[in-house]
C-alpha cells in the first residue's frame, strides 16, 4: 500500500510540474496556433533569474519572485513582438514559427550555459526539510506547496478564462480568429496578452521547479517535451485538457515504474507521445477539426 501511495504522490508532483509547463504552452497555442517550443526556455530563464536575484544578488526572496515574474512576462512579450509577430506579418507558416521557436530555445539555452556555466546550480531558499508521512508516502513541505499552488493557479486560470473580458477574448480568438476580429477583438492585443500570461505561468513553473530541483542549462528542453506531451495527451487546443493530460502523464510515468525499471520513465512519456500523435493527435478531450485531414 505504501508503494502505491508513494507512486501516487510522486505522480501528483510530476503531474503538477508538467501541468504548470503545459498550461502556458497550450494558452499560447490556443490564440496563436503554433507550437511555441521556446516556452521551455522561459521556464529555465525564470529559474535562473530567481537564482541570480535571490542567491547571487541577495535580494529578499519575495521581491526576487516578483522581479522574476515581471521579467518572465517581458521575456514572453519580447519573443512575440521581436520574432513571432514580424514573422506572422510576413505570412510565415506555422511550421516556420515552430522552427523559429526551436531556434530560440537552442539560442537561449546556450546563452544560459555561457553565462552561468554547464554545472548545476541550487537555490537554497528552503532548507531540505524532513519529509512528512502522508498515508504511507513521504512528501516534503515544498512538494505540498507545489501541488497546492498549481491547483490554486489552475482554478484561478479557469475563472480568468471564463469570467474576465480578456479571457473571453482569448477563447474567442482561439476558437475562430476571423470571427473574433469581425466582432471587434484586437487580435494582436489578445496574442500579446496570451504571451505575457503564458510566460508568467512559465515563470511560476520555473520558480517552483527551481526550488525543488537543481538548475541545469538544458532543463528547458526536457520540460517542454514533457509539457508538450501532456498537452498532446489532453488536447493541445484547450488549457484545461492540457492540464488534465499532464496529470495523466505524471501518473502514467510513476505507476509505469511499478512494472518497469525506473530508467523507462522517459520511454513511457515518449511512447504516450507517439501513440497520441499517431492515433489521436487531437488528444483525449480535443476537437477533431484542424488536426486531421
Amino acid at each position: 500500500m505504501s508503494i502505491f501511495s508513494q507512486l501516487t504522490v510522486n505522480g501528483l508532483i510530476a503531474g503538477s510540474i508538467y501541468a504548470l509547463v503545459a498550461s502556458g504552452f497550450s494558452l499560447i497555442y490556443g490564440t496563436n496556433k503554433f507550437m511555441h517550443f521556446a516556452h521551455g526556455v522561459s521556464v529555465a530563464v525564470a529559474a535562473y533569474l530567481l537564482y541570480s536575484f535571490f542567491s547571487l544578488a541577495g535580494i529578499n526572496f519575495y521581491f526576487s519572485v516578483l522581479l522574476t515574474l515581471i521579467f518572465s512576462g517581458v521575456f514572453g512579450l519580447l519573443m512575440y513582438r521581436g520574432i513571432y509577430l514580424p514573422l506572422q506579418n510576413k505570412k510565415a507558416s506555422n511550421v516556420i514559427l515552430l522552427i523559429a521557436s526551436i531556434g530560440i530555445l537552442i539560442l537561449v539555452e546556450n546563452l544560459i550555459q555561457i553565462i552561468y556555466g554547464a554545472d548545476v546550480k541550487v537555490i537554497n531558499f528552503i532548507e531540505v526539510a524532513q519529509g512528512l508521512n502522508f498515508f504511507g508516502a513521504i512528501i516534503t513541505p515544498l512538494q505540498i506547496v507545489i501541488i497546492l499552488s498549481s491547483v490554486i493557479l489552475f482554478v484561478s486560470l479557469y475563472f480568468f478564462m471564463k469570467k474576465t473580458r480578456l479571457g473571453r477574448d482569448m477563447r474567442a480568438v482561439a476558437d475562430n480568429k476571423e470571427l473574433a476580429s469581425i466582432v471587434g477583438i484586437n487580435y494582436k492585443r489578445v496574442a500579446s496578452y496570451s504571451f505575457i500570461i503564458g510566460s508568467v505561468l512559465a515563470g511560476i513553473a520555473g520558480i517552483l521547479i527551481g526550488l525543488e530541483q537543481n538548475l541545469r542549462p538544458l532543463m528547458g528542453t526536457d520540460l517542454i517535451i514533457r509539457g508538450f506531451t501532456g498537452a498532446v495527451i489532453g488536447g493541445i487546443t484547450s488549457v484545461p485538457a492540457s492540464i488534465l493530460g499532464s496529470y495523466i502523464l505524471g501518473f502514467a510515468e510513476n505507476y509505469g515504474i511499478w512494472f518497469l525499471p525506473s530508467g523507462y520513465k522517459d520511454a513511457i512519456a515518449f511512447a504516450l507521445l507517439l501513440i497520441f500523435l499517431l492515433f489521436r493527435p487531437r488528444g483525449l478531450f480535443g476537437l477533431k477539426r484542424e488536426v486531421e485531414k
Partner: protein
Amino acid sequence: MPVEFISPYITNLLIFIGIYIILVVSLNLTLGYTGMLNLGHVALFAIGAYTSALLMTRLDFPFVIAFLAAGIFAGFFGYVLVLATKKLKGDYFALATLGFAFIVVNLLLNLQGLTHGPLGIPGIPKPSLFGLTIQSNFSYLIFVAIVAFVSVFIIYKIVKSPFGRILEATRDDEIGLRVLGKNTVKLKYKAMIISGFFAGIAGSLFAHYLSFIDPSSFHLSEIILVLTIVIVGGLASIKGSILASFVILLIPEVLRFLALPSSIIGPGRQIIYALILITILMYKPRGLFGRVDLE
C-alpha cells in the same frame, strides 16, 4: 598512400562538410522537393550510424555490407515514418516527425543492452574496401568526397527526372495531382525511402570516421543545424544545400581563432547556428537559391 598535403584541421573540416552535404541534400529531397515537413531526418542519420557501428563491432560484418545496411535500414524507418504519419497534416506531421526524433534518441539512451545507452559505442573500425583499410584521415576524405559526389549526383538525377517533377507537383498541388489519378502517398513513401537511405549512409560515414558515437550527437541542436543549412541554401536547390553546408559549417570556426575556452566554443557554435536560422527566417526565408516557401 598519398602524403598529407593539407593540414589535419582542414581535412577534418572537409570530412564533416562532405558528410553534411549528403545529409542535407537528402533532407532537401523530402523537405524541399516533396514539401514534406520532415523534422526527423537526424533520427534517420542516427539509425544509419548505429546500424553500421553495431553490425561491424558486434557481428563483424564487412564494411560494405554495414554501410549499405545503414542506408537500407534508415530507408526502412523512413518508410515506417510515412506509414505512421500519412494521415497527419501540416504542423502535426512536423511534430510527429520531431517526436520520432525524440523517441529514437530516447531508445538509443535506454536500450542499453544494444546501444550501451549514454556511454555510446567505442572502437568502431575504420572502413576497409576490397582488402584496403582506409586508415589516414586524408584517404577518408577522398572516400567521403566520392560517396558525397555519387549521392548528390543520384539525387540530382532523381529531381531532374519525370519522377522528380511529380514530387514537386505533390508539393505544389497535392489535391490536383490526386485528381489526375496519382497516388501521392506512394510518392511520399518513395521520396522518404530514398532520403532515408542517403541519411543512413551519411550516418555510417559519420560513425566510422569518429570511431565513437553516442546519443548526444543526434539531439535537438543537430536538427536545428541541418534545418538551418537546408533553409539557408534554399528549398529545392541542391546547389544551395551544397554551398550552405560549406558556409554554415565554416562560420563558427572563427570562434576557434579567437582563442576562446572550449566551454564557450561549444555553446557559441549553437548560438551562431540559431541566430543564422532566426535571421534567415525573418529576412530572407527563401535562402540563397530557394525556389519555394516553407509552408
